[in-house]
């Protein structure tokens, strides 16, 4: 697992994806930060993190699109799959490499709030809570990205497919507003909505059930990815 993790992480920087990801992430986060706090003359972080959630939904699929599709296309996966490495540890190695990229970029950009220090009282607890929430949501997005990447040989399809799934999941929260609040479907939709759960974090609440939800959603897609590889040997 460690070998694959290290190779993936280094792979981001021997190609262009790592640089593109970091540059875009830092630049767009900077722009969002400027508009949501500096220009709006506020230290409130809610809109910053909401925008960052949507931005992650687009940028993370680009980070994960190559993970498996490229290996499949160039047949390098034959090396991984005939080496004494289990499929789960191969998938986890790739997951962790993408996750480290994301977490590093996110934590770095969150330090932008230090800029506000001279001008306003900052609610650090809220910011830390939001960062944790984004770190959790990122786990889910990356797991979805890896799963879709394992399904195709084409990077672009992997990215587009991942974005589509993520936005479908985010769209569930739009549906909830159409359903009367006393209806049981509303309860179910709220429970599985990534967005609704994220908002309890942005508003400063920490819910254990949300933590469990995000971790299980990520685990589910990682499990699907492992199954894709298990199944492929039989076809």
């Amino acid at each position, binding site marked *: 697992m*460690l*070998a*694959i993790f*290290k*190779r993936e992480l280094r*792979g981001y920087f*021997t*190609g262009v994806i790592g640089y593109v990801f970091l540059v875009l992430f830092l630049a767009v986060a900077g722009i969002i930060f400027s508009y949501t706090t500096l220009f709006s003359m506020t230290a409130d972080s809610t809109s910053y993190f909401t925008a960052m959630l949507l931005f992650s939904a687009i940028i993370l699929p680009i980070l994960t699109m190559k993970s498996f599709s490229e290996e499949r296309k*160039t*047949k*390098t*996966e*034959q*090396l*991984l*799959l*005939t*080496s*004494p*490495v*289990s499929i789960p540890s191969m998938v986890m190695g790739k997951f962790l490499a993408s996750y480290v990229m994301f977490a590093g970029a996110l934590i770095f950009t969150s330090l932008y709030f230090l800029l506000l220090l001279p001008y306003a009282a900052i609610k650090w607890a809220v910011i830390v809570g939001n960062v944790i929430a984004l770190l959790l949501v990122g786990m889910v997005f990356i797991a979805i990205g890896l799963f879709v990447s394992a399904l195709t040989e084409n990077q672009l399809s992997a990215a587009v497919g991942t974005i589509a799934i993520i936005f479908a999941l985010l769209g569930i929260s739009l549906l909830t507003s159409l359903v009367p609040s006393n209806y049981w479907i509303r309860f179910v939709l709220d429970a599985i909505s990534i967005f609704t759960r994220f908002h309890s974090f942005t508003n400063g609440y920490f819910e254990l059930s949300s933590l469990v939800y995000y971790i299980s959603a990520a685990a589910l897609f990682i499990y699907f990815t492992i199954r894709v590889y298990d199944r492929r*040997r*039989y*076809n």
Partner: protein
Amino acid sequence: MVKAENLVKRYGSNYALNDVSFEIGAGEIVGLLGPNGAGKSTAMNILTGYLSSTSGAAYINGINILDNPIEAKKYIGFLPEQPPVYGEMTVREYLDFVYELKKVEFDREAHIKEILSVVKLTDVKDRLIKNLSKGYKQRVGIAQALIGDPKVVIFDEPTVGLDPKQILEVRNLIRNLGKRHTVILSTHILAEVQAVCERVIIINKGRIIADERVDELTKTIEDGYQHEVRIVGTSSAVLPALKRISGVRSAEQLSGRDGDAFIYAVESAGSSDVRRSVFNVCAQNGWPMVGLAPVGGDLESIFIRLVDKSDRKISGGKTER
């Protein structure tokens, strides 16, 4: 060391492998020979655990590759049809990665250095793999398979796409590997098997049609060896003379002419070499011989002959009963 037990791989109603069994001992160099699409790659992919079989089992060093893949894969070095190299890494970085991936416990510097020199890659070890020629990439693939000094090395078409000099180098390399490893290689070139292997397993359409020592295969090929002879002279005189030569099983005139020469097919009985006698007969009679060439030495006709032979064995067995 390697054992295949009734391997079947089915895609829909197509059989890529149909009841393939063999056992390969330690230190053997075995060639899997067959035309493209015969099932060689499928067999190798199953042995290395990349694919699973529809039924049957594969064992490496006595370990079932499906039941205990991680343990079994420790004993395998595999070069797939397309070398599994990452273009954006240097040769050295790549081999370091494979070393870590396979959790090898030898002294890293010495081990990688040795492999680099065995496959003659030392000069290019700091170059990006994507900038290397096909021959070098293939060697990187071979180097990768040797990391960890696995007991079994499996090469899928190791000389495809190489130039003649590189082919000789790779064949020499493989022959040397046979001293320390069990080697399985696949090829569709008969000469390659004869040059490198001790034993050959011939696969056609997913079935094993022959499994024998290479010198015995050579005998099979030479049994009833045919030559095409071109002789100037009256065919009514030449043909009976050819038939009278001892060691000639049959001779017939083929259609067509080569200038003023007629073309004959001469089949020898058993493994006797009739070329000298044919020459002498022509010389004594003053018939200029303008051509003498073996026919039927190519893979296709050997297949046909082997299939015939195995059919004959089967029908022979039935009549005995």
